C-alpha cells in the first residue's frame, strides 16, 4: 500500500531530563521542519517537566550498527581485559589505589 498523507518526516527525539545528565533517546515525532519537530517533541515528551533540553534528528540521518553483526563488530574490545583496573596486581597492603 502506498499512501501519502503528508504527515511529515520521522524525527528521533533525545531529552536531557536534568542538568549534567546525558541526552537520552525517548521516541520519535513527525514534522515537516525543524521548528515543528522541536515543538512537537516538547508537546509530546515533556508535558510534565521531563526535560530541560531537547535534540531532534531526522531519522534518516541516524546511522546504526547492525545487531546481527554484533559479535564481529564489538569483538575488538572483548579480549582486552588489561583495559580494566582489576587486571593489575597491586602489592599486598597498598591503600587508596
Amino acid at each position, binding site marked *: *500500500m502506498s*499512501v*501519502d*498523507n*503528508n*504527515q*511529515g518526516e*520521522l524525527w528521533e527525539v533525545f531529552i536531557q531530563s536534568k542538568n549534567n545528565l546525558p541526552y537520552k533517546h*525517548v*521516541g*520519535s*515525532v*513527525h514534522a*515537516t*521542519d525543524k521548528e*515543528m519537530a522541536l515543538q512537537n517533541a516538547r*508537546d*509530546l515528551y515533556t*508535558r*510534565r517537566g521531563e526535560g530541560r533540553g531537547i535534540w531532534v534528528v531526522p531519522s534518516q540521518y541516524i546511522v*546504526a550498527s*547492525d*545487531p*546481527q553483526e554484533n559479535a564481529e563488530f564489538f569483538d575488538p574490545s572483548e579480549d582486552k581485559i588489561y583495559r580494566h583496573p582489576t587486571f593489575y596486581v597491586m602489592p599486598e597492603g597498598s591503600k587508596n589505589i
Partner: protein
Amino acid sequence: MTEEQLEKNFQDRIDAEQKIEPREWMPEKYRKHLIRQISQHAHSEVIGMQPEGNWITRAPSMRAKMVLMAKVQDEAGHGLYLYSACETLGINRDELVEQLHTGKAKYASIFNYPTLNWADMGAVGWLVDGAAIVNQVSLQRTSYGPYARGMVKICKEESFHQRQGYEIIAAMAKGTPQQKEMAQDALNRFWWPSLMMFGPHDSDSPNSGNAIKWKIKRESNDVLRQRFIDKTIQQAELIGLTVPDEDLKWNEERQSYDWGEIDWDEFYEVINGNGLANRQRVAQHKKAHDQGAWVREAAKAYAVKQKNKEVLV
C-alpha cells in the same frame, strides 16, 4: 545462520527475559503480531479522545474543564508514543491511519459506547482507564523494547486519569439523590463493557498462544480481568455504589471475587462494528484527518520554501 537457528536464538533470548530491539532479527509473525497489537493500542488511545472530548465544552467547572483537557491531551500523547513504537517495526504512519479508516485495524470496543452525561466522565476515568492500567502495567514487561518503554511512560501518566475519574464519580455519589442515581447509572452502563476490555476468555482467545510464548503478552485475559475486579469492588462499595452483577460474591478460599458472565454476543456485536457509536467514531476521525489535509500541505510547502532559502544564502 539458518532460519531455524535464528528462531531458536530469538526464543532463547525471549526466555532469558531479554528485550528485542527494532533492528534485530525477529520472526515475521512476531513482527506482524506486534504491529497489529501496538497499532490497535495506539488507535484505542486516539479514538478514546472522542467520548471525553465530547464533554470538554460542557464541563461543570473551570477546574473540571482543565483536567479533562489535560486528560484528553494525554490520550493523544499516548497514541503518539505507541505509533512511534509501532513505526520502529517498519510500517509508516500513513499506513496505520489508513488501516484505521478502512477498518482493517481495530481499536478497543469500549470506545464505541456513548458518553451520555457528566457522570460518564467519572465512570470512564475510573473504570475504563482503571482496566487499561491493569493491562498496561502487565505490558511494561512485554518483550519488545520500544513497546515496553512506551508502556512505562504511559503507566506513569495514567494514574492521574483514573484518580480524576474516581474523584468525579465519588463526588456525584455523595451529591443529591439525583446525582447519586446518575453515578449508579453510569456504573451500570460501563461495568460490563469495562470487563470486556480484557478480551475473550482464555479458552476462546485465538491470538494468545504465540503472544504468551513470545512474551508479548505477560498475563492472560482472565487473570488481568480478575485483578481489575478485585481492585475495583472496594472502591465502588466505599462510595456507596453497587456493581451490577447479581452473582458477585467474595470467595474466601480463593481470596478473590466470583462474578457473573459477560454478554459475549454484545462483545462480538460491538467488535464487528455494530456498537452504538462505531460508525460515528471512525467517521469523526476521518473527518478530522481530511479537514486537516490543507494544514499538512501548507506545512510541507513551507518546509520546501525554507529549504530553497537555505540554498540561496
